[in-house]
């Protein structure tokens, strides 16, 4: 190489930052997210992780955010509020995250929301259904998820619909964590308001190895409709107990358990149909608007996505809308600009995989467009079909026997 070539190479090297400047637009946007990927609720975080991965594949395949690829960095909290605090401290104080996506259960979300508020960093909850968090007056807590209040209202509407078909004798069966007990408390209040007598209320702990006694208590009460809040393991144990007791009420479920897509692999499918296993949910794979997500998920994991997987897929898209809003306004991605962007976004229902009318946050961070559906196992429990509310239902719910 002669002197001229050396000089040209040196000049080219010196100009590298300039020639790369347009590529700065390609700089990756990295947003942290917290989820319980180990511990007793690891299934929620692991499914959430799968949902996040598919969302990122879709967003980045569609050109990213303003041409920049998006990356979500997941942090394991074990579902433990103590670990949540440690992770939040690191993210807000050390890493100066401008926004945090929460795929965390209610107990952890409570700790995370408190921390985010103190640090003045927006926390976008896509998972926890706690209504109480929205009543704390936090400015930096946003939840695009449904709440226990809307869940309870949907269950009661559905039970009222069953009441038009015959006598409904309702009983409550629930695991006693804040998740189960909290929603059931609201259902109880709404039914009492309507003058509906509840014949039995049977709480149990999630780790109970034998659910024959509480299920028998419900059976002996003469109930023909059981409103049941539970996680997968206790719902499986309870359904087995019902089968042993020859007890086939109409089950209206709440929470991840009754709606878990793996239930037909764990319990006799004919029995699932005999009890009309239904569940109030914020996602069902048969929704037209969710098909891109469902197909990608099935191709990758060989099973239809669970509601846990859907929640953080949706959350990443909510986050994308906020990031896009801030970038389009020519602003840097800071906690303040993203806080303003979250208050500004308005995502129409047809762009969502949830049955929501839209995603629009009020001043308390509540999504005013959230809406539930009720899905029911049909065709020998081979598919979970959306049956309520009528405007999104794919089929009618099974009639009350």
């Amino acid at each position, binding site marked *: 190489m002669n002197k001229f070539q050396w000089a040209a190479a040196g000049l080219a090297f010196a100009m590298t930052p300039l020639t790369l400047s347009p590529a700065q637009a390609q700089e990756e946007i990295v947003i942290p997210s917290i989820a319980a990927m180990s511990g007793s609720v690891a299934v929620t975080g692991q499914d959430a992780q799968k949902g996040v991965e598919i969302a990122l594949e879709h967003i980045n395949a569609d050109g990213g955010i303003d041409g920049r690829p998006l990356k979500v960095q997941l942090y394991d909290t074990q579902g433990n509020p103590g670990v949540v605090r440690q992770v939040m401290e690191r993210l807000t104080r050390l890493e100066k995250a401008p926004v945090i996506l929460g795929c965390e259960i209610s107990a952890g979300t409570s700790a995370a929301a408190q921390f985010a508020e103190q640090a003045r960093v927006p926390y976008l909850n896509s998972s926890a259904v706690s209504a109480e968090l929205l009543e704390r007056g936090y400015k930096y807590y946003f939840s695009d998820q449904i709440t226990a209040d809307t869940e309870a209202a949907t269950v009661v509407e559905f039970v009222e619909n069953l009441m038009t078909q015959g006598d409904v004798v309702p009983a409550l069966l629930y695991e006693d964590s804040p998740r189960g007990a909290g929603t059931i408390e609201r259902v109880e209040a709404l039914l009492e308001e309507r003058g509906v007598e509840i014949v039995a209320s049977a709480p149990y702990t999630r780790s109970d190895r*034998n659910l*024959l006694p509480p299920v028998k208590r419900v059976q002996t009460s003469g109930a023909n409709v059981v409103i049941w809040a539970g996680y997968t393991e206790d719902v499986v144990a309870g359904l087995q107990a019902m089968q042993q007791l020859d007890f086939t009420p109409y089950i209206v479920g709440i929470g991840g358990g009754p709606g878990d897509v793996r239930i037909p692999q764990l319990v006799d499918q004919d029995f699932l149909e005999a009890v009309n296993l239904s569940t109030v949910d914020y996602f069902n794979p048969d929704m037209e608007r969710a098909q891109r997500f469902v197909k990608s998920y099935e191709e990758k994991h060989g099973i239809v996505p669970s509601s846990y997987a859907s929640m953080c897929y949706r959350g990443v898209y909510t986050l994308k809308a906020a990031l896009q809003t801030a970038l389009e306004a020519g602003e840097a991605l800071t906690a303040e600009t993203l806080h303003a962007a979250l208050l500004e976004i308005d995502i129409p229902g047809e762009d969502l995989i949830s049955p929501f009318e839209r995603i629009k946050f009020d001043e308390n961070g509540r999504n005013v467009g959230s809406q539930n559906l009720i899905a029911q196992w049909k065709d020998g429990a081979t598919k979970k079909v959306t049956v309520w509310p009528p405007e999104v239902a794919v089929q009618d719910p099974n009639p009350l026997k």
Partner: protein
Amino acid sequence: MSMELLLQAAVSGFLMGGIYALIALALALVFGVMGVLNFAHGDLLMVGMYGVVLICAATNLSPFIAGLLIVPAMVLIGWVVFILLIRPIVGSAPLVQAQLTIGMSFVIQSAALLWFGADLFNVRSELGSSSIRLGDIVISAPLLIGCLVALLASGLLAWFLSATIWGYRIRATAEDPVMAQLCGVPVQRVQRWVFAGATGSLAIAAGCLMAFYHVTPVVGLQFSVLSLLIVVLGGLGDLRGAMVAALVLGVAEAMTSAIFNSASAPAALYILFGAALLLRPHGLLGRGATV
């Protein structure tokens, strides 16, 4: 609260207690012979439960048979764990033993999470949903068979300890290891075989549990806690005491759930535990070591 519900709870609790007994006996035996309280006991049980799931998925066998089939594998696991981890801490301070076995528990849980994921697994069979009716009382068939198998295995263990030469050696080692050594008992070999055998017996308990229960990576913790409770309540190192304590705890747990609710069951168990420790510090039968 009707008498029918109470009877139902008592029967279910007793059957559950039978299975608890087999799980806890293995822990009591290990403590009796080598003085090690193994906090990873439930996690070794969890390994057995995953083994039963794998065998059942591959062969469609009953979980009880699958439990028997994995006994040799569990004995081997117990043997390796003893050689690598337990033998160095025999005779060490209780805190050292606790730290090591709790650490082992975390390692087993994490390995299960990596290997099987967080999903719940169970074994689906006709038996799982069948029951026997005695008047108004419904007896879960898998629970009944599980209890009978567990009681049979416990009986065999009792016979082995009281009527065979190896049983004498084990009891001698438990009684006084130094004197046993002086009398020609190969104490280290006895300890090794006891740990391996106790781990092997967890395979049978795993088969009984998987007939009606499920497994996740964290399921072992509850069985570790329960076994420790039973072993202490029965009197440290007292096998018969552990057996009685398991049945008492099973019934107490179910009755409390029926009378109050399930949420109060753990509290009731600990109240019972505290009362028993105050009134019977050497265990329910008064033959265990001082706590």
